[in-house]
C-alpha cells in the first residue's frame, strides 16, 4: 500500500522534499502517519502538535484511516490573507 505525501512551507523545509512516495505495511491512521514522519524526519518533530493532515484535499480527523493511493498533505499553520 502506498500513498503520495505532499509537504508545504515549513514542513517541506523540515522534510527536505515537497513530495514523497510512502509505503505503508500496516493499517495507518492520520495520527500514526504523522508520528512516523516525525520519527523519520527529526526536524519535523518539534512541530508535530501544530501540523494538521489533509487526505485527498480535506482536513482529516486524527483517527481517519489512510487508504492505498491517498494523497496526504502536511498542513503547517496556515497564513493566508
Amino acid at each position, binding site marked *: 500500500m502506498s500513498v503520495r505525501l505532499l509537504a508545504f512551507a515549513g514542513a517541506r523545509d523540515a522534510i527536505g522534499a515537497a513530495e514523497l512516495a510512502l509505503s505503508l505495511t500496516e493499517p495507518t491512521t492520520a495520527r500514526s502517519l504523522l508520528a512516523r514522519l516525525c520519527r523519520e524526519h527529526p526536524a519535523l518533530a518539534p*512541530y508535530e502538535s501544530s501540523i494538521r493532515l489533509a487526505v485527498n484535499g480535506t482536513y482529516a480527523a486524527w483517527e481517519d484511516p489512510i487508504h492505498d493511493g491517498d494523497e496526504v498533505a502536511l498542513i503547517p*499553520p496556515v*497564513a493566508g490573507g
Partner: protein
Amino acid sequence: MVTLTDEPITIDPLLAHVSRPSAGGVALFVGVVRDQAEGRAVTLLEYEAYRPMALAEMERIVGELRTDDVTLAVAHRIGALRVGDTAVICAASAPHREEAFAACRRLIDEIKARVPIWKREHGPEGAYWVGWRDARCAHEHHS
C-alpha cells in the same frame, strides 16, 4: 465565486458577482501586504498554496456561509507580493448591512483559519514562514 490566482486581483468582479436586486448592502474586505509584521520590516511576501485543496476549502467556506439572502465571493492571490499589493478580497451581499458585515467578517476569519495558504516573509533579518517559528513545540495536543 472563488478565485485563486497568481495575477493581481480587483474588487469589481467580486462586487458584480454578489450584486442582487434584493441586496441593499455589500460588505467587502481587502487584505493588503503591510510594511511591517510584529515590529519587523517587511519588503516582500511569498504566498504559496496547496492549490486544489485551497480552492476546495474556499468553496466549502462559501457553501457554509451562503444563505438564501447572503451571497459571497472571495479571491486570493498567491506568488510574490510587495507592500501595498492586495492578497485577498472578500465580498458579501445581503438585504441589510448587518448580515453583510457579519458574513464578510466570518468569510475572512474562516479563510485565515482554514485555507492552506502560507506566506514567507522577507525582511532585513532574512526570510521565514509566517507562523512556523511559533508552531515549534506548541503546547496544544492532538485530539
